[in-house]
């Protein structure tokens, strides 16, 4: 099966099993990393509508997006572990994972930093008459940065083909991260610049899929920028520095027998519940999960076995020429 025909569950499981195993080997990672656990449905929704000419500007929390888009998992592990097999040969690490073949040429990890860059890509595409849109993903924290507001304004003024996706993983209170925003709802912020905005429950894969599809169709139809607020429930393992996994590996059986309050907000368990309601064979779901887990295991092994890059790599790609 090719990436474009993967079922949504597979896109999400690739991210989840990847991040769970990464946390297992966290002692081997230099520095910090961030996982996308709980946010996989948004990633799957975007991956499902992404066309080859689209550009995806990700951020410091990118694993789930790349996994959903079909990026090979071994180079992802390798980059995070600082090995030569990674796309940047260990020069970028988790913060700068990229996959130029899947619309991710470059990843900025500055909060909000990649958003204007995405607008620029969209501007160039429109001005040159080329297909494709820019999809800019950022967390709710980025709405505290002035550049986001500059970008809403300019995207509307110039009618740029841009999708803003705010992946909110703060506790939702009437749709707002109350600790850091004075706005009544996060969607008020783009709407103040007349960027149409919608809010979707990103713990419900169908809901966020609908919201992203609707917004992207409007953009491709020439309607200018759109904003989607993808509201998740905070996953208890996230931390400022290294995440832990207090809930353990999420077995699909927890769809029917939850272990923890958060299991009700787990987009993967919600997808399993929906598939089961539609009559899916639990054995087939378990087999899919086992296949993904094996892929992740092979990828981790390949990354751990990969050598470090030679020191000369540190001097490459600094400038076009001396």
């Amino acid at each position, binding site marked *: 099966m090719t990436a474009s025909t993967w079922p949504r569950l597979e896109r999400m499981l690739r991210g989840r099993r990847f991040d769970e195993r990464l946390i297992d080997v966290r002692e081997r990672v230099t520095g910090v990393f961030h996982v996308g656990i709980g946010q996989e449905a948004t990633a799957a929704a975007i991956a499902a509508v992404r066309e080859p000419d689209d550009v995806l500007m990700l951020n410091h929390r990118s694993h789930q997006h790349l996994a959903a888009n079909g990026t090979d998992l071994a180079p992802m592990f390798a980059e995070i572990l600082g090995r030569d097999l990674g796309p940047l040969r260990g020069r970028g690490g988790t913060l700068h994972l*990229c996959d130029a073949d899947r619309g991710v040429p470059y990843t*900025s990890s500055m909060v909000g930093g990649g958003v*204007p860059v995405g607008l620029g890509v969209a501007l*160039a595409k429109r001005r040159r008459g080329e297909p494709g849109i820019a999809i800019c993903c950022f967390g709710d924290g980025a709405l505290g940065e002035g*550049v986001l507001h500059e970008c809403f304004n*300019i995207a509307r003024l110039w009618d740029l083909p841009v999708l803003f996706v705010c992946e909110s993983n703060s506790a939702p209170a009437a749709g707002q991260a109350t600790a850091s925003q004075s706005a009544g709802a996060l969607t008020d912020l783009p709407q103040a610049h007349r960027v149409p905005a919608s809010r979707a429950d990103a713990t419900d894969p169908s809901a966020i899929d609908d919201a992203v599809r609707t917004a992207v169709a409007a953009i491709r139809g020439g309607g200018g920028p759109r904003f989607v607020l993808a509201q998740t429930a905070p996953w208890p393992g996230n931390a400022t520095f290294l995440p832990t996994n207090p809930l353990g590996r999420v077995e699909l059986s927890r769809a029917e027998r939850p272990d923890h309050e958060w299991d009700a907000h787990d987009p993967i368990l919600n997808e399993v519940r929906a598939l089961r309601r539609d009559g899916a064979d639990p054995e087939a779901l378990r087999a899919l999960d086992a296949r993904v887990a094996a892929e992740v295991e092979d990828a981790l092994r390949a990354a751990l076995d990969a050598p470090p890059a030679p020191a000369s790599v540190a001097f490459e*790609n*600094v400038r076009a020429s001396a």
Partner: protein
Amino acid sequence: MSATTAMRYHAARARALFRELDANPDILLLGSAVSGPFNPDMGLDERYADRILWPPIAEFAAMGIATGASMAGLRTLVPISTSSFMFYGWPAIVQEASNVRYLSAGRASAPVVFHVHAGHRRGGGAQHEHTPHAMLQNVPGLRILAPGTPAEVDAAFHEALTGGDPTLIVDHLLLADAEGPVPDAPMRLGEPNVVRSGRGDLAIVSYSLMLQHALEAATALEADGVSATVVGVPCLSPMPVDATLDAIAGHASVLFVDESRAAGSPASHLAAGLLERGTGVRARLLCTADAHPPFAPHLLDAIVPTVERIAGAARELLGLASATTDLHRPSPTSR
């Protein structure tokens, strides 16, 4: 040798930009203040209206958008006008544009061009007279071009708008009327530019406006029997340190003149290279004092390298005058 045309700096700048705009329809300007707030208007808005977008006053977004657009096939030029405004867009150049090639393993690049008027334009005061190139020479991945002659500004626009790297053009409003020959084919800026050849008494090394000041000082020094060589270094990053030191080899004394403050300046980088060569050359840095740029011209003249101060520093270096009590020089106790 190609033919040359005698031009003023501002006319050479306009001709160069128009030539590049005509040569490449993918060049897009975000803003149009290339001639800045005070230089003769080059007629850019009328002539190339369809090649200019005017963003709102939002430097981070504008510079970031220009960066992204340059990754996707446009050649974007952002005329920032007074260099101070670039600080609002600092993340776009320091964090985004400079990193695209490196953080994509060369799969992407961002050959965006930022143009600023830097240095002390007089009357700008503490918030409008900065030397950001001294800060940005610490950022890998950028090219920083600081032309000081009509020929150099001609080449700066050519190299910036045809090269493969994010590039900062460090312009100076007070260069507008400088005259000089401009070759039909742009010169190369990655090498030192010997603009005056002397007998070997003294070499003055500089860039941007200070290069013109150095030429004037060299003329004044003829009355003292000094025949000074003057060398421009129009590419500050990556800086051709070895080639510049080669160009002044054989000179017994070297004066580095820089409108930046000495700490972390292009001049101090060159001087460190000279020190490492261990050639026993007498050398001195003449930079802007560690003080804010005052508004009143006579106060500004107390802190920046003026023509008179450059000539005076040269005389001291050559033993033709005793050290002055110039406030500009830190006293031993203040170090």
